[in-house]
Structures are given as structure tokens and as C-alpha cells.
């Protein structure tokens, strides 16, 4: 027996077999496991890709379709299907629910072989859950897949793949900077009047004066920028005119001329701008009206006389249809840059804030200054002022810097929230409280104020945006503007700008573009030659603010 055992011990025949069986038995499942794990990994990667694409597409749709949750869900589902199935966008999964509606929406869809999912998924159903949230304009997408392993079937449940991706608006702090300088009132008007050089546009005969009053602001005879129509009906250039009386050619306004209200035309009223006769001998001082529509004047806190003047012009502008009506009609759409600015800003806010109340904060600053007048005073001096008939009151305002309505975010948001309830609601907005535009164009002061506002945002990590609207030519140097803008962009503030080009020269446009884009590294300047385009310009900026993938 012992000898047989020894013999068996010495006998090596067949020793490999049990070892081989043992190892192979272990290796085969291990090999299968490695194949399955690799398959799971690739499945996971593919699902992540599809889920992320769906979240981005959904957020885009949410953004561009006014927070219509139904449309966003539909786009999300389509994008997901596009990545896991047939690479096309066919299929309607959810109907539109309307702008901003509902505030949250959850939708679940299970894709099966019948939906044409790729063979790669081995017929495993894929469940997609989409959730929308109006609060932050957020789309949350979760996809679930229980994979079918090739070998280790009991791993299937343990290897369930669940991916969640979210896309939302980044927190954005926006400060609007609105130019309220004098040239913003009737800048466009000046362009057309200027083009009518020496054209008689007055009424015929010696009728009453009031029907032919045109509210027009010109400025800066010294720089020769703007023109006005003098009392004799001819175009000339002159400084600091706020009102213009257009009369029959060659007819001087008589010294005892009066408005129909009985008030004398020639009154040395420091609150009035001045009207000149052809010989520059007399002046009439009165304030210009702001850039409001004539139909709005009734509700404004301005002198009744001003209302009457404007209304009279509106009523009687067709006295000479061959001249005035055509002229006025041509001007009508362009007459009010500031009113258009208000409209543009409102449109911007109504458009973007609906995408997420918590995602966006908006501030508003406006600026105007008398800086150019200050410059003028140093050039021509007091006696020259007097010689040119300039108001002493203007001089008393030096040095003068007006930053109109600097507002905290909270103030603005509170009012905008009221305004935007249910979309384009009531207009209880500080945007409507724009002061009358006046003075020089101190853009840098406006930018500083915007920075002050942005610095008071309580949200770290938010994108800082400044949106500047101006008519182009600052009353300080262009190089100072470029330096200022660069200091802001270096600090991470994005600066968009909209420039109304009607009253500025091509060289000014070129300078502005160079200083903003090349020196200041701001976003490309949007130049428009029609205030009616302001809405589109602001919408374009809203569009360009874009979306950010959160995780």
C-alpha cells in the first residue's frame, strides 16, 4: 500500500490537468467579466453623451422659446433619441405648454427596440426623465439603462446605469447703461434736418407761429456737428439750441411774437432754451421736451405750453403736405432714441427674465453730463459765451456731472418682477423714469456707475455684463473710453454696446469700434441707424448671453 502511494506520488502524469481545469474555470468567467465591464463602460459613456446632449438641447429650447416647458421637454427628448437611435429628429413627444408655463414639468419616456434604439444597446429599454424648472431656467435629464451583459448575467441589476445631467442659465448680473445726453433726444432729427440744407420747410404765409414749432436740439457750433433750422427757415449750425421755430422763408420772428397761450416768445426765461433769429440777435430760452412721443406728453410733468406746442405741431404738420408732412413722416419712426431705448430695455428684460427669475439680475444706470459744456467754457470764455448768446444758467452748472437713477439690484428686481408678472405686464418699471436727456456724453461715468452696481451683486461666480446704449461720441476722449473698457474687461466684465449712428460721422463710428473692440476687448459693437432696431439689438444681446452647462 505504502509503495503504491509512493508510486503515485512520484507519478507526475496528469498533474497539469486539474491545475488547468482550475485555472480555466476561473479564467473563463474572469474573461467574460472583463468583456462585460468593458461593455458597461462604453454603454455608460454613450449614455452620458446622449444625456448631456439632451440637457443642452433642452436648455437651448427653453431659452429661445420663452420658457415653454413643453417645447423644452420635446427638444430634450428628441436630442436624446437622436443620440441613442436613428440620428434624426423625427417625433413629437410633448406639445407646447405656452411661455413660462408650467413652472415645473416632469416627463418620462421609455425607449425600446420599437423606437429604433441602436443594436449596441442589445434591446435594453432606456428610460428618460426630463424635469424643467422655471426658477433657474434649468433642464434636468436623467437616463436609466439596465444593460444586458454578454456573459455575467447576474451582474445586470448591479450594473444599472443611471446618468443625470443639468443645463441651466448661468447666474447673470446685467447692468444697463443708458445714454441720456442731450444728443439722444433728437439726434436723428438733426440728421434729416441737416440734410435739408437751405430747404424751406416753413408754412406758407404769415400764419400763427405755434403750428410750426419743431422741437429740436442741436449742439455745438464750435465743433460744427449739428444743424438746425433758423427762424427764417434755413438750415444753419448753432450751439445749444433746444427749440426751433420754423417760419416762412425770409420772415423774421417779430419781437412781440407770442404763443397762442399769450406767452411772449422772447422771454428771458432761464428755464428755456433759446431760439435765434437769422441775425443771432435775440434768444428765447426754454427747455426742450424729452424724447417722448407726442401722444405721451399729456401724462408728463412738463409745462402745458410745451404740450401745446408739440400737439399743435402734430395737429398742423400737414399744412403743407408737400413739405412738412412728408418730412415729418420720414422722421416719425426715428424721433425718439430714448423712448426706443426704454422699449429695447423692456423687451430685453421681458425676454430673458422669464427664463429664470433666480438666474438673472438686472440693474439700470443712465448717464449724462455737462462735460462738453465744461470743455467749451474753457475754450471760449465768459465773454464769448455772451457774444454767442449762451445762457448764463448753463455756466452756473459747471462743473456738473449727473448720474441719473443709479439703482440697486434689489430695487430694480422688485420693480421688474411686478412688471413681468404674466409676461409683458404693467410698466411699473424704473426704466420709465428716465430723466429728460441733457448735457454731454460722459460714457466713462456711466460705466463707472455700472461697475459700482455690479460690484454690489451678492452672487459670487455670476457673469457680469454691461450693456451700453449711446449715440457714439463721448464728450471725453475716445482713448479714455478704450482704457476704461479694457480695465473692465480685464476684470472679467463682458461689455456689449449698441450705438445709434444717425447723428455721428463715420470716423466716430470707426473710433468707437476701435476703442471698444480692439483696445477695450469688448464684445462686437452693434451699430444701428434706426432706433426702431433697438429692440432687435437688445434681443440679439440676450441671445448671445447664451447658456452654460452646469454639470
Amino acid at each position, binding site marked *: 500500500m505504502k509503495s503504491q502511494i509512493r508510486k503515485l506520488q512520484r507519478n507526475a502524469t496528469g498533474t497539469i490537468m486539474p491545475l488547468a481545469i482550475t485555472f480555466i474555470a476561473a479564467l473563463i468567467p474572469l474573461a467574460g467579466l472583463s468583456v462585460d465591464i468593458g461593455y458597461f463602460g*462604453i454603454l455608460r*459613456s454613450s449614455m452620458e453623451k446622449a444625456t*448631456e446632449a439632451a440637457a443642452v*438641447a433642452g436648455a437651448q429650447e427653453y431659452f429661445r422659446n420663452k420658457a415653454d416647458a413643453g417645447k423644452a421637454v420635446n427638444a430634450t427628448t428628441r436630442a436624446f433619441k437622436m*443620440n441613442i437611435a436613428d*440620428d434624426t429628429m*423625427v417625433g413629437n413627444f410633448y406639445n407646447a405648454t405656452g411661455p413660462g408655463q408650467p413652472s415645473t414639468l416632469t416627463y418620462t419616456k421609455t425607449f425600446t427596440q420599437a423606437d429604433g434604439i441602436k443594436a449596441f444597446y442589445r434591446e435594453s429599454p432606456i428610460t428618460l426623465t426630463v424635469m424643467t424648472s422655471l426658477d433657474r431656467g434649468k433642464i434636468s435629464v436623467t437616463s436609466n439603462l439596465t444593460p444586458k451583459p454578454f456573459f455575467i448575467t447576474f451582474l445586470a441589476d448591479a450594473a444599472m446605469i443611471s446618468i443625470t445631467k443639468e443645463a441651466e442659465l448661468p447666474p447673470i448680473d446685467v447692468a444697463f447703461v443708458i445714454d441720456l445726453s442731450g444728443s439722444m433726444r433728437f439726434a436723428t432729427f438733426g440728421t434729416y434736418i441737416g440734410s435739408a440744407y437751405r430747404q424751406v420747410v416753413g408754412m406758407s404765409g404769415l400764419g400763427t407761429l405755434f403750428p410750426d414749432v419743431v422741437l429740436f436740439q442741436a449742439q455745438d457750433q464750435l465743433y460744427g456737428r449739428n444743424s438746425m433750422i433758423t427762424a427764417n427757415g434755413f438750415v444753419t449750425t448753432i450751439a445749444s439750441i433746444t427749440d426751433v421755430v420754423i417760419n416762412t422763408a425770409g420772415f423774421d420772428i417779430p419781437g412781440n411774437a407770442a404763443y397762442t397761450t399769450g406767452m411772449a416768445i422772447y422771454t428771458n426765461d432761464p428755464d428755456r432754451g433759446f431760439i435765434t433769429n437769422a441775425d443771432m440777435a435775440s434768444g428765447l430760452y426754454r427747455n426742450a421736451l424729452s424724447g417722448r412721443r407726442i401722444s405721451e406728453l399729456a401724462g408728463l410733468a412738463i409745462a402745458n405750453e410745451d404740450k401745446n406746442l408739440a400737439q399743435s405741431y402734430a395737429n398742423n404738420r400737414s399744412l403743407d403736405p408737400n413739405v412738412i408732412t412728408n418730412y415729418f413722416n420720414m422722421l416719425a419712426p426715428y424721433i425718439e432714441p430714448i423712448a426706443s431705448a426704454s422699449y429695447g430695455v423692456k423687451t430685453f428684460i421681458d425676454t430673458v427674465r422669464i427664463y429664470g427669475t433666480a438666474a438673472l439680475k438686472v440693474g439700470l444706470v443712465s448717464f449724462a453730463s455737462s462735460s462738453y459744456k465744461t470743455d467749451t467754457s474753457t475754450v471760449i470764455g465768459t465773454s464769448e459765451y455772451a457774444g454767442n448768446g449762451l445762457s448764463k444758467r448753463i455756466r452756473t452748472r459747471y462743473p456738473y456731472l449727473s448720474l441719473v437713477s443709479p439703482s440697486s439690484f434689489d430695487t430694480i428686481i422688485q420693480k421688474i418682477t411686478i412688471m413681468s408678472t404674466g409676461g409683458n405686464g404693467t410698466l411699473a418699471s424704473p426704466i420709465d423714469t428716465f430723466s429728460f436727456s441733457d448735457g454731454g456724453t460722459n460714457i466713462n461715468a456711466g460705466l463707472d456707475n455700472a461697475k459700482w452696481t455690479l460690484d454690489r451683486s451678492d452672487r459670487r461666480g455670476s457673469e457680469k455684463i454691461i450693456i451700453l446704449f449711446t449715440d457714439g461720441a463721448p464728450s471725453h476722449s475716445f482713448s479714455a473710453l478704450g482704457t476704461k473698457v479694457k480695465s473692465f474687461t480685464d476684470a472679467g466684465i463682458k461689455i456689449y454696446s449698441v450705438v445709434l449712428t444717425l447723428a455721428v460721422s463715420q470716423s466716430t463710428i470707426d473710433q468707437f469700434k476701435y476703442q471698444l473692440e480692439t483696445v477695450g476687448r469688448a464684445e462686437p459693437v452693434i451699430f*444701428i441707424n434706426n432706433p426702431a432696431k433697438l429692440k432687435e439689438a437688445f434681443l440679439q444681446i440676450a*441671445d*448671445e448671453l447664451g447658456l452654460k452647462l452646469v454639470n
Partner: protein
Amino acid sequence: MKKYIIRRNTGAVLAEAALTIPVFLLLIFSVMELSRALYVYNILGVAAQQVAAKIAINAKRTPAYNIGGFTTYADQVRFPGAVVDSTQFSFNVTDALNNGTVVNGQANGATSTKVVVTVIFPPPADSSLKIPIIDPGNLIGMPVFGAGGLMLSGSATCFLERSRRPTLN
């Protein structure tokens, strides 16, 4: 003499090792290269998606999509050993229904536009990363996967924004 040599065990291990080590190394390197191929394949999909998402979020029609400029986004995505060069990327903008390729533009006003980002491996500009790095097939002049090594690609699809950019002036 002949019988003596056959019975003698001296050097047998060396001879066996000489036979088995190449097979063993082949197995080891095959597993390594297979793992690397899986890694690269996975990464190509991830890179394609990251670039597609960047394009979807940031690309603007001005007034058409600047497909040549999409490499800017490709330059922002790198994975060592897999995605090293923007020449690995190619871009195709089509309408979302696959009705046709849209060159630098939007399909039409009714449908969305999508971008398909494709990433290939090995990088055209860097053949040293090919799979496998050492190809035993070269010994007999027949590379296993051809001269360029194993060709891999990944792709991802994202919608492009339906831009509202107005034509001003």
C-alpha cells in the same frame, strides 16, 4: 551520443522559456493594447461630446456658422494619449432631419441645425500614438491593423442654437 542529448535536461528551462516568453509577452502586450484601445475609444466619445456641447452653446451664426472656427473649441479639449490634436476633429453641420449637409449655415427656418463632431484616432499628425505601438506583424511585413495601426473614431451630435441674430441695417 544522440540518446544522451535527448535525455539530458540541462538548458530545458531556457529552451522552454524562449518558446513561452514571446507568447507570454504577446499576451501581456495584447491585453495592454486592448485596454488602451478601449480607453481611447471611450475617450473619443467623451471628447466629441465635450466639443459638440461647446459648439452648441457658444457657436453663433454671423450670419453663417463658421465651421472652420469650430477648431477653437476642439483646442479646448485634450486627453493625454488619446486626443492630442485638433486635426483629429472633423465637423459636419446638417439639418436635424438628416436631409442634407448644410455648409456654414442653417438648414432652413423650420428645423433646427445640428453639428456632428467626429474624432479619429490615431492623430494624423502624431503616428507614434497608434495602436499597437509595437506591432509583431511588422516582423513579417504584415501589420495587424495596417500601417497606421487600429483606426478608431467617436462622434457626438448636438443641436446648434437656432439663432435669433437679426440682420441689422
